[in-house]
């Protein structure tokens, strides 16, 4: 099996238009969650991590991305920015594109323009970048982004392709906002992952693109995508396993295959009472209770199919900077098992980072990243 490395990345989120701008805002403790004036999605008073679409379309103009839907524009822009920072040729035969999303152009449902098919975005990507292969579309609820990264790593490691461009994206819509409201899973305040007073999640939108390759970048420091796994709870479709069974197994398989211990964990941390309890149990069962852990959901909200890629990129940048970002929204300990939640930003030298995610359908995933100097 070949080794797989990170070539470049991009995040478009409520915190900015590229990974660096996002990381600066994470470091400064700026949350992207706001109460919108004239909220187009709901009359309920809930904060949302919404994108600055005017700015996005301005950037699209600069990148000659024109005449597309909101979702497709976001995807093309994030892909364009990440590809520009890598040295790959997007039309080459050895490149595979992977899109992870839960709902794609869901705002076009019923419009009879074919856009609501998730694969319609793959067609747009293929045409825009003249890709040699039809892009894969992966839709595994909130673990979609990590499943996409794990799939990309496997495709490259087994020699099927040499480069993979993985984009996770989802946008806010009345469909998704009303759905989470109907589940009573949204907090009236910015979400508080792992906090004693957490009472639900906050929704966000965005895109995260990561370019992977079997070619080791010619840089003093490189990030390897070392391992990863997914596992089903086999317990409930809309709630996590109480014991954290599936996440425990996903983490266990991810670590066992490499015999490495993470020095930092980016949790799923949605701030629902059940999820965060479950995660604390899964971490404890893997003897990871002392490893520093945070959730980025207090900064961007839950970006669904984009969360896996966006938060992986945040974690990689934290590792490059040797810097831990505090878990925004956390004040008072309140989960089932004692875990080491990051309460203040700090310099911290580390080389092994674990990303985890869980989602509807009882699915769980993990991926491990290693920095080589």
């Amino acid at each position, binding site marked *: 099996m070949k080794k797989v490395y990170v070539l470049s990345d991009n995040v478009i989120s409520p915190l900015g238009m590229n990974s660096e701008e996002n990381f600066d805002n994470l470091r400064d403790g700026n949350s992207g969650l706001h109460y919108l004036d004239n909220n187009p999605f709901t009359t309920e008073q809930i904060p949302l991590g919404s994108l600055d679409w005017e700015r996005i379309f301005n950037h699209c103009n600069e990148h000659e991305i024109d005449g597309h839907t909101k979702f497709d524009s976001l995807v093309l822009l994030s892909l364009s920015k990440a590809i520009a920072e890598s040295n790959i040729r997007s039309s080459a035969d050895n490149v595979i594109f992977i899109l992870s999303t839960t709902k794609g152009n869901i705002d076009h449902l019923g419009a009879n323009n074919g856009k609501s098919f998730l694969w319609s975005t793959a067609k747009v990507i293929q045409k825009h970048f003249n890709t040699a292969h039809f892009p894969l579309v992966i839709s595994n609820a909130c673990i979609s982004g990590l499943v996409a990264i794990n799939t990309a790593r*496997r495709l490259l490691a087994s020699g099927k392709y040499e480069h993979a461009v993985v984009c996770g994206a989802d946008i806010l819509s009345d*469909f998704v906002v009303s759905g989470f409201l109907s589940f009573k899973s949204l907090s009236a305040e910015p979400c508080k992952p792992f906090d004693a007073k957490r009472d639900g999640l906050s929704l966000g939108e965005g895109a995260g693109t990561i370019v992977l390759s079997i070619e080791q970048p010619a840089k003093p420091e490189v990030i390897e995508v070392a391992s990863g796994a997914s596992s089903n709870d086999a317990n409930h479709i809309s709630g996590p396993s109480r014991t954290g069974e599936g996440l425990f197994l996903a983490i266990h398989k991810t670590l066992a295959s490499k015999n490495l211990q993470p020095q930092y964990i980016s949790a799923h941390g949605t701030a629902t009472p059940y999820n965060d309890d479950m995660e604390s149990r899964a971490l404890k069962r893997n003897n990871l209770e002392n490893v520093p852990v945070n959730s980025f959901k207090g900064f961007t909200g839950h970006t669904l199919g984009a969360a896996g890629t966006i938060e992986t990129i945040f974690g990689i940048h934290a590792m490059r900077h040797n810097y831990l970002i505090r878990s925004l929204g956390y004040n008072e300990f309140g989960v089932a098992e004692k875990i080491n939640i990051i309460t203040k930003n700090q310099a911290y030298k580390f080389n092994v980072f674990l990303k985890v995610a869980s989602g509807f359908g009882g699915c769980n995933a993990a991926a491990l990243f290693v920095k080589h100097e």
Partner: protein
Amino acid sequence: MYINQYVCISPDKVTINNESSIINEEKSDFRVFTKQIYRSYALQYPKFFKMDEHSRLGFLAASLLLGPEPELENENTAMVMMNAESTLFTDSQYKESISGIPSPALFVYTLPNIVMGEIAIKYKFKGENIFLVEPAFEAQKLYDHTSLIFDTTPTQSCIAGWVNVESTKNYLAVLYLVERIANSQKCITFDPTNIEKTFQS
């Protein structure tokens, strides 16, 4: 690798290993026909009736494929599924509910991977799950992604195939059990040509 068993459910009939098992002679609609299949196989799983069409179809195909107690390793049984529609049929129903009282019972089914969750719950499968959305059925892609799971993970068996609901008149499930070892006399080699054959059964 081998396809040890395969099941196909279409609006016309149910076939198991390319042999017809139930014919939809009265051209019953989706709800009636799937209930008929459920009863014919004496399935006892009340939650079946709460599922949306996409999960019902995939769950039913998996239940016929595997029987009540398959001898599979729970932790090493994966699922690789594909379709074209994602859950658009259910999405439209949920969307209609938004103007009144949005239905959480419908909303939870607006993700294509939920069907794998339902099958996992029934059989306690805890392996890898991946759901791919493609414009049309492609045997080669299903073969590639199922093989990739076998080649790069400890997976011993995999429930793989196509579960697609366009409408209550137009739907198709083709699921097969892929294993590293041949364990039935009716097994066929797992390759794109045979996957294509199962799709036309």
